[in-house]
């Protein structure tokens, strides 16, 4: 997909890297929100910087959605404050903000063009400008021919793209994307990713919420992990990883993987992932990596790779949540492949 428009009737929206005066950072300062008896968010502070992507992570029910709703001024914090560009968020900041919620939705009976126009108008965009932007982005997303179709005639993936266009149409300075790649095929996911990175490079502030750790690792510059309404890990991704140290062994081998069982039983390591020829092993209690190598050499016929690495994002996530909430929650996270809902978290740490 080329960035330049091939069709002359589609005007190109000039969106060069913006000057610093409109580059804003998002500051969440000591924010608390309580619903009835549930403390959804407890004294949370973090910052998202322009030209960077902040990954907002956490198990279901951790308070991510509540936090996002306060940033988007859908709800208001009980305590603390949220600033965007040194001003409290409010109706004004809503106009320079684009929000793609996890649960997508469009008006089923409205035509794509009319719908996008309505969303743009609600963001305070003049009609003429909106019309140009709609044409530009639909063209870019390969959806121009759908402009006068009703939404319910569109495929799910197409609807996702239309919703994404609605989010970025008004050229927001702050983007909040909750699982933006859900339901997209790899080609469209790549297309979306290239647009997101482009927006980042032009100085937009981006908050990216996801449960897909490999995407987080690929896209995010900073991460903020919340659990039970509190921040458990916060900082630039590479620093966070360093903090956890090189404590994970990746091993590729030929032969039986039976050597893993006594290792794990002794409590020296925890096996995070294993398959016929590969294992990801977390070293516990200062176990040296050569301990694993020795055990492996005795049992397998060949070792094709042995590497000591920083833990992957998934491992950091599990460790951090476990430390805060106890084993049970983490087990549910690991075995289910998904993430534990807050109700399943019986024993708190």
């Amino acid at each position, binding site marked *: 997909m080329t960035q330049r428009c091939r069709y002359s009737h589609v005007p190109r929206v000039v969106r060069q890297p913006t000057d610093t005066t409109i580059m804003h950072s998002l500051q969440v300062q000591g924010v608390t929100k309580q619903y009835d008896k549930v403390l959804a968010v407890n004294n949370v502070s973090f910052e998202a910087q322009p030209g960077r992507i902040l990954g907002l992570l956490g198990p279901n029910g951790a308070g991510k959605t509540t936090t996002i709703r306060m940033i*988007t001024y*859908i709800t208001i914090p009980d305590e603390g404050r949220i600033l965007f560009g040194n001003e409290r968020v409010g109706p004004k900041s*809503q106009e320079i903000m684009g929000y793609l*919620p996890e*649960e997508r*939705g469009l008006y089923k*009976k409205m035509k794509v063009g009319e719908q996008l126009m309505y969303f743009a108008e*609600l*963001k305070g965009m003049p009609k003429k400008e909106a019309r140009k932007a709609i044409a530009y982005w639909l063209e870019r997303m390969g959806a121009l021919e759908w402009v006068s179709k009703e939404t319910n005639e569109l495929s799910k993936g197409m609807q996702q793209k239309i919703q994404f266009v609605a*989010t970025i149409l008004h050229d927001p300075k702050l983007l909040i994307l909750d699982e933006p790649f859900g339901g997209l095929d790899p080609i469209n996911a790549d297309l979306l990713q290239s647009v997101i990175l482009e927006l980042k490079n032009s100085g937009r502030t981006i908050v990216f919420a996801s449960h897909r750790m490999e995407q987080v690792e690929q896209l995010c510059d900073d991460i903020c992990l919340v659990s039970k309404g509190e921040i458990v890990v916060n900082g630039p991704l590479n620093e966070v990883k360093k903090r956890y140290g090189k404590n994970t062994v990746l091993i590729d081998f030929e032969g039986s993987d039976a050597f893993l069982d006594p290792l794990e039983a002794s409590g020296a390591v925890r096996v995070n992932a294993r398959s016929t020829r590969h294992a990801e092993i977390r070293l516990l209690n200062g176990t040296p990596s050569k301990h694993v190598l020795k055990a492996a050499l005795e049992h397998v016929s060949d070792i094709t790779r042995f590497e000591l690495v920083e833990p992957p994002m998934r491992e950091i996530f599990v460790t951090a949540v476990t430390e805060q909430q106890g084993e049970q929650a983490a087990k549910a996270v690991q075995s289910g492949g998904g993430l534990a809902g807050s109700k399943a978290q019986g024993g708190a740490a």
Partner: protein
Amino acid sequence: MNKTVIVAKNEFLKRVKTRWFVFTTLLGPIVLVAFFAVIGIVSVSAIEGGESTIVLLDETGRIAANLKDPEGDITFVESDADEQTLRQDVLDGTYTGYLVLPAGLIDGQGQARYYSTEGGGVSSFNFDLRNIIRGTVRTLRLQDQNVSAEVFDIINAGVSLETVKLSDEGEEQGSSAAYAIVGGIMGFLIYISMLVYGSVVMQGVIQEKMNRVVEVIVSSVRPFQLLMGKVLGIGAMGLVQMTFWAGLIAAGTMGSGAIISLFVDPANMDLPDTATQTEILDAVGFQVPDLGPEVFVFFVIYFLLGYLLFSTLFAGIGSAVEQQQDAQSLMLPIMMPIIISIVFLQAVIEAPNSGLSVALSLIPFTSPIPMVVRVAMIDVPIWQLGLSLLLLTGTFVGAVWVSSRIYRVGILSYGKKPSLKEIMKWMRYA
């Protein structure tokens, strides 16, 4: 542009452009008129029951020859057969019934007795039959006393009653029936429209919530603006329809004379076939109602306020639920006043100045329907109109406050259907 206006404009255009809107606007009145016409025709034909044949056992020997139905629906047949045979004939369906006229009937002794499979009841057939017998017997009684033809004519001359409505502007001839009909139709229209537009608003709120569009919208506008935009946009659509229909009522009222005279047979009113429309209407005692423009103004005002009040509350309820069915139980307390005002519609029409009518037209939740009926029928004192409008407007403002607080929590709450108590709790959230 104000965001409430953008939302309202979108809601208005989205709906006005649909076929449903054009269809209901144009065909609504036709359907309504057809509905009333069908009820009228069905009830009239049910009462008349077509033609019937009655066998006479005339013991006086004089009545049978003179008995005649002026409308020709009933045929009288004399018979010498014994009662037992006639009884069987009636049971077999050969005759509709048989009538026994005892010998002393003309002298005021005994009573005529009618036997049929249907028995008595309060049908207009029994009423007609009694009138026919009474008329014939009375004529015979007068003939027996040698009453002169002149006296006879005097007695038979019709007596009519003319009703005159008194108002501050003086007196006004005409039938209050016409005013009652106009008032009734207006009250009924407000009833229907409050329910229909109210549920359109509720449906819209539920759909937006279920589509999950609402989360995107409230990241651009305040929930209050969305709520008001929705209510006002759909209200504007309703206003267009109601204004159109109010115009039709006005036109229909002016043309009512021509319509009535179409249905009246001059022969029945002892008028020549060449009678003019005015003559016919005078004979029926019908006067084209002279409705002032204020009647239509109040019709539109009360429709608007009633709609605003109830649709705002419906929107609040819609935001709390995920399906239309779940809304039913929550709607009941709000529906009660509307139902009460339609139940008492007849009472208000019969006595528009009674304490009940005045009370109903002042109480904010019930006032729109009874007040419009009263305004159409009588001169409602200014203080009553003022107080009623003040209370209704105040209640609307209160409803906006309550509903918007429920709404902003409700639209983002999914899962279990909340109880009324939980909804009340939402109002206290910051």
